[in-house]
């Protein structure tokens, strides 16, 4: 045994495990192809795409502008929140709290805040800022951990802790942090648009209506504008202009309105209390009756909603993880400047832009018409979106790679020279995105796939906030468990930094 030369290294093992997990998940997934004749609807859709109507949407410019506003203010709030948290992230309590906050989709944060702040922009800003802050805390912490300690050691002895920290640590890694913030800003634009689905005055408000009601010319126009907005970020989001934009955002955000402390009080101390407990506190219900009712409620919601929801969510996310790996590999090959002609690379990168910009909701919506309402549209939509996003980041990374003199633009050379170099990053990104996929399953819940998001959406629709809170808490805990075990799994396989997410940034 010991003499045998082994070529099955940690990366191969990790890949094999990933695929095994995904295949097992697929066994349990509902992937029936159902649709019989989607062509009538699809031809209407195609007609919409070739005849986009840019004048069908009222207040279009305002919607575009508010999309940017919410993203900017959300990210700014996220930085203010996540920056200091990054310094204490090593504390397990902080890490777990952040993982819980991250585990809840922006849409659900928004639905929660909606109960307190109504349609005030505060709802949208907090819904982006809170989970983004938790993400910044983790990623900034991971980035700071890579900062070399040599500088700090050589600093003058009596240097105060803050200067020591800023010059000695932050100085090393702030370009990485800025790059990460830039990347998150793009994500925030998507989040901001998606918050329109529940009523924020962003592009998504009109986009969702247009697609839901079959006004495809309007929908296509909005989608094109949105892709354009994301594709040209580097042109309009100049570093020097950011303060100007921020100030402009503060001026032009819709009226905040009145914050009513009573609503917060009522929401937290009445609405969120589960049945039984509420009865005991606010009515004359006997404690034993109350506890009994509470127990009935807890058992019923756990067995009928939480457990099946968690199961479907994990199955969906794991299947999508495997497929994302495949999509990322193929999309990367197609869009890489090292694998084909320049034109193909440009076309490929355009494709990546489109796939990563279109909200998964819209992708799944179209796929649902094509292949029916099983879990399959959701799996494919998640994989396309995340695969394209990963491929996009890889293409950016490999710009710094100079291949050997004998390099030819062929798949085999590509596999030897380029893929091997970016593969650790690919896997790192994939594991990092898994958390995102888990969260994004929420959106398909709203489309009707029975993930836990489906039950949460139902709880909000039925105005049963205690149900919503319980299911959200389950979602958040699920994320903590998965975050923890994924780090363990990856760290055991590959000792270096991928478990810490280093490769996710550069």
């Amino acid at each position: 045994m010991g003499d045998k030369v082994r070529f099955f290294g940690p990366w191969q093992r990790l890949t094999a495990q990933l695929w095994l997990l995904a295949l097992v998940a697929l066994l349990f997934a509902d992937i029936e192809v159902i649709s019989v004749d989607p062509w009538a609807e699809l031809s209407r859709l195609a007609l919409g795409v070739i005849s986009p109507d840019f004048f069908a949407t009222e207040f279009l410019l305002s919607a575009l502008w508010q999309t940017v506003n919410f993203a900017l203010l959300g990210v700014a709030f996220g930085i203010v929140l996540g920056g200091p948290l990054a310094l204490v992230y090593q504390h397990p309590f902080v890490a777990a709290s952040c993982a819980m906050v991250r585990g809840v989709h922006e849409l659900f944060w928004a639905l929660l805040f909606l109960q307190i702040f109504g349609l005030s922009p505060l709802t949208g800003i907090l819904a982006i800022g809170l989970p983004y802050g938790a993400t910044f805390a983790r990623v900034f912490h991971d980035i700071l951990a890579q900062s070399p300690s040599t500088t700090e050691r050589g600093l003058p002895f009596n240097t105060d802790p803050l200067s020591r920290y800023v010059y000695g640590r932050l100085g090393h890694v702030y370009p990485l942090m800025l790059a990460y913030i830039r990347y998150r800003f793009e994500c925030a634009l998507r989040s901001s648009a998606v918050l329109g689905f529940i009523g924020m005055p962003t592009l998504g408000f009109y986009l969702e209506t247009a697609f839901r009601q079959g006004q495809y010319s309007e929908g296509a126009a909005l989608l094109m504008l949105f892709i354009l907005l994301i594709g040209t970020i580097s042109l309009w989001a100049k570093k020097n202009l950011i303060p100007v934009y921020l100030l402009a955002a503060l001026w032009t955000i819709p009226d905040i309105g009145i914050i009513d402390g009573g609503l917060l009080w009522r929401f937290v101390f009445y609405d969120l209390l589960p049945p039984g407990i509420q009865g005991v506190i606010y009515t004359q219900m006997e404690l034993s009756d109350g506890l009994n009712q509470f127990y009935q409620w807890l058992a019923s919601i756990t067995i009928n909603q939480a457990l099946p929801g968690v199961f479907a969510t994990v199955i969906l996310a794991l299947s999508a993880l495997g497929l994302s790996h495949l999509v990322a590999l193929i999309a990367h090959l197609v869009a890489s400047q090292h694998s084909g002609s320049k034109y193909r690379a440009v076309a490929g990168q355009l494709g990546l832009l489109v796939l990563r910009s279109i909200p998964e909701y819209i992708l799944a919506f179209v796929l649902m018409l094509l292949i029916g309402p099983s879990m399959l549209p959701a799996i494919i939509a998640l994989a396309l979106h995340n695969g394209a996003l990963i491929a996009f980041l890889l293409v950016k990374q490999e710009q710094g790679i100079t291949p050997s003199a004998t390099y030819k633009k062929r798949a085999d050379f590509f596999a030897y020279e380029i893929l091997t170099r970016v593969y650790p990053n690919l896997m790192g990104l994939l594991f990092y995105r898994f958390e995102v996929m888990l969260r994004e399953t929420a959106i398909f819940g709203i489309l009707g796939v029975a993930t836990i998001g489906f039950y949460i959406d139902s709880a909000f629709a039925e105005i049963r906030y205690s149900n919503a809170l319980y299911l959200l808490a389950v979602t958040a805990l699920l994320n903590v468990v998965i975050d923890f075990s994924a780090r363990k799994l990856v760290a055991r396989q590959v000792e270096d930094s991928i478990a810490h997410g280093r490769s996710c940034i550069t």
Partner: protein
Amino acid sequence: MLRLEALTLSYGDRKVIKDLSLSIEQGEKVAIVGASGVGKSTLLAHIYTQLNSQAAYCAQSQGLVDALSVFHNVYMGALARHHFGYNLLNLIRPQTHRINEVSELCSALLLDVALNKTVSELSGGQRQRVALARALYQQQSTFIGDESFSSLDPVMAQQLIAQVLSRHPTVIMVLHDCQMALNYFDRIVGLQDGEIALDAPSQILQPEHLIAFFDRKVGSVSDNGG
């Protein structure tokens, strides 16, 4: 000023410094010599931890922050002298007075680069001088240097060492240049295998006494081991 007695330092199981005793008085200019791996850097780092608030330390690893400018890297030598608010202000908007100080120091070190250049753009020799400038900018009475001139040509090295010596009453420096040690330092300490094998005033020493303490030909310019 500094008194080490029966000092032993280890890296894991391996003893790097064994039972070493050394005392250095204020105003002394001490060169530490020795072949690669005898524990010079370890000893020097230890000396710094003993003297800390009185000494400026220019380590071999330099500790430069690649993403920051030349100005900021040098200014870091002054962090302990200023309030943190002032330090942050200088990070965002360097103050004219400090720019002038740093600029003056850089020209004294023959470092002719724009102060707003990031250090990642500099050559090895330039980086070494930025690290040196940072240590000088600490304005301490004692300078502790670990092969601070290894990437420089001998002529420049001599000019710089004169700067270091004129600005600090006490200098403790690891050197890889025999001639420089003899010409500029009062006292030479030679390390062998973690112990002091030689400790004598430089007037009584000749280059051939020191051969055993250098890896290669006497007076070789650079050696990044140790």
